[in-house]
């Protein structure tokens, strides 16, 4: 069978892709700030510890079946019929996940600028840019990830320097002064929205030049993403104090505190740049995985003809997906973590379990 994607990525490129993919959830910190305003950093660390275990399981699964992506793996483990059912479910989840991420960003931008512009216009422009990147293949996405990762790191560093004078360590205390269930919920949100979607890389890892380095690359990328999130959340809590649970976007509000000699003020564009670069990469990766999965499922020769129709479906779903940004935030906090858990944790765990019990892959002549 010919490979759908001719491109190959290095272990470093995979690291950068994963790093920026995790950073792509930076806009969702608002959801966690509402539940555990002073404990976001702690929830991030505990969720990181948990997700590391799952990531190791995903990598183990990929290394058991070298060169096989998620769809091929489902066919091998569950057979051609049940495997295809699982793959269809994954594809639907990829589309829903892209739609939700896109809705977040297209609601966010008109909330700050261009308030009269209909959100569908932002959706079309954003998906068009992502479609262009996806059509150019995995190598282009990987090269872009390095550039964007550097830009985002510089902006985060700039935000840290500019807001350092407003930072008060006392704002981080008391720790865990919330009901335990709220802390669990904050962890659950971080696990499912920030980190869990990393399983999408099960479609990309087979295109690595050296599979043996997959574990190191994935863990390093995860660490880069988590460290960025940690810095941003600690800064937001330290700068805003008790305000962070009531402001619309803690990140924007933190940057609005910047005032250098009354010249450097209203630095909102810094946060918007971070959001656009990181969300662009996150959506592109999931969008790429969606088209690749459909092509793999239907045994097509190329995924490229599917890029535009899949983009149109995403644009078609994005506006009716949620009644309002508030409805989406409520879904993200209360129900999405459970729904996403099915695809991010339950199904991959079942796949690994079945593969282990059935001693797959079977050795030839054994």
């Amino acid at each position, binding site marked *: 069978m010919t490979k759908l994607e001719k491109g190959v990525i290095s272990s470093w490129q995979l690291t950068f892709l994963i790093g920026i993919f995790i950073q792509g959830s930076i806009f969702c910190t608002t959801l966690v700030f509402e539940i555990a305003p002073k404990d976001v950093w702690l929830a991030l660390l505990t969720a990181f510890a948990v997700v590391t275990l799952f990531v190791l399981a995903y990598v183990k699964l990929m290394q058991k079946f070298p060169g096989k992506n998620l769809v091929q793996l489902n066919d091998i483990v569950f057979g051609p019929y049940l495997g295809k059912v699982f793959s269809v479910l994954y594809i639907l989840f990829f589309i*829903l996940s892209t*739609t939700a991420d896109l809705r977040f960003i297209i609601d966010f931008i008109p909330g700050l600028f261009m308030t009269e512009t209909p959100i569908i216009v932002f959706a079309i422009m954003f998906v068009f840019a992502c479609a262009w990147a996806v059509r150019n293949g995995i190598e282009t996405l990987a090269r872009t990830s390095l550039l964007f990762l550097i830009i985002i790191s510089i902006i985060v560093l700039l935000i840290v320097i500019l807001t350092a004078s407003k930072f008060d360590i006392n704002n981080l205390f008391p720790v865990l002064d919330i009901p335990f*269930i709220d802390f669990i*919920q904050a962890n659950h949100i971080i696990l499912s929205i920030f980190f869990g979607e990393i399983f999408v890389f099960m479609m990309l890892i087979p295109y690595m030049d050296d599979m043996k380095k997959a574990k190191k690359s994935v863990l390093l990328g995860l660490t880069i993403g988590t460290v960025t999130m940690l810095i941003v959340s600690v800064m937001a809590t330290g700068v805003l104090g008790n305000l962070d649970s009531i402001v619309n976007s803690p990140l924007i509000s933190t940057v609005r505190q910047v005032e250098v000699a009354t010249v450097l003020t209203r630095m909102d564009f810094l946060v918007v740049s971070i959001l656009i670069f990181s969300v662009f990469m996150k959506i592109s990766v999931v969008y790429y995985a969606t088209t690749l999965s*459909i*092509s793999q499922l*239907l*045994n*097509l*020769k*190329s995924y490229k*003809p*599917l890029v*535009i*129709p*899949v983009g*149109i*479906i995403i*644009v*078609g*779903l994005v*506006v*009716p*997906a*949620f*009644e309002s940004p508030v*409805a*989406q935030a409520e*879904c993200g*906090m*209360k*129900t*999405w*973590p*459970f*729904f996403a858990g099915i695809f991010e944790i339950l199904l991959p765990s079942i796949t690994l379990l079945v593969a282990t019990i059935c001693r797959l892959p079977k050795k030839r002549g054994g």
Partner: protein
Amino acid sequence: MIFFVIAIFIGIGFFESRSLIKNKCWGEFATFISLLTVGFTLILLQTLGIKIPSVGEGIKFFVENVMHLGYK
């Protein structure tokens, strides 16, 4: 507006399917047309002002009423 949407979709269909037909990639062509039809239906319904069921509400219903889970 409806004619504008139809014209856009005909343009996309013509632009993309030309090379697929030329290279006899029938599988790709069938999938492309099927997905484009789904996308076209979604966009056309919204252009006509017909309400499409909300995905968010669907997820909420599934988690709360089928899985019996969810945070208060």
